[in-house]
């Protein structure tokens, strides 16, 4: 599945998206951390269909998924 990247995470990855295979948010996290240097040490959230998701959430591959670094609005 395609994963959208933002801010510092997009900068670290050198890309706006990455493609990973994952059946849960936890697997997505592990796959992304294996792909993007420094991600494991960062504070970030995972959004599934535009909501912050828990690690246990199952994925069927059709969701809109994104990795979100710390928010900085305002």
């Amino acid at each position, binding site marked *: 599945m395609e994963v959208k990247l933002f801010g510092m995470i997009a900068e670290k990855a050198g890309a706006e998206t990455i493609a990973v295979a994952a059946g849960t948010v936890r697997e997505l996290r592990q796959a992304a951390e294996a792909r993007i240097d420094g991600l494991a040490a960062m504070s970030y959230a995972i959004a599934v269909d535009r*909501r912050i998701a828990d690690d246990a959430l199952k994925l069927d591959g059709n969701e809109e998924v994104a990795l979100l670094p*710390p928010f900085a609005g305002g």
Partner: protein
Amino acid sequence: MSTDKPHKKRDIFIDGPIDPAFVAESIAKHATRTDIGGHEIFLGQVRADMAGGTGGGSSARTTAIDYTAYRDMANEQMTPIREEAFARWPITCLHVYHSQGVIKAGELCFFVFASAAHRQAAREAVAYVTDEVKKRLPIFGKEIIADGGHQWKSNT
């Protein structure tokens, strides 16, 4: 005319800085709403902080913030914040705008505007919405530093 309903979905993002004239026009649009007795406004302005914070090696200042956002999610997350504000306070309308792109120090990047019959409701709603937007909307800020570097802003 501004007759915002809490469920109304809209795009809060403006490309570039928020023009003070836009703020003035927004106020002027409410002249026909004679049930309003007070407006409350918060305006966020980009500050020329010293880069690196305390103990940072750099003596250069932030010259701008390059804002990006997960725009669809941010606009969706705005809906419950708006509903919470209308549920908690008797406000007549609420407007929120945030910049995208490079905003230089001294320029406006964030505009929260509530109107109500009485000042207390408008004040409290603006304070709440300002805080919740900063906490809950996926907006990201790259601070551009005078020495040519950059660092990532974080509200947490």
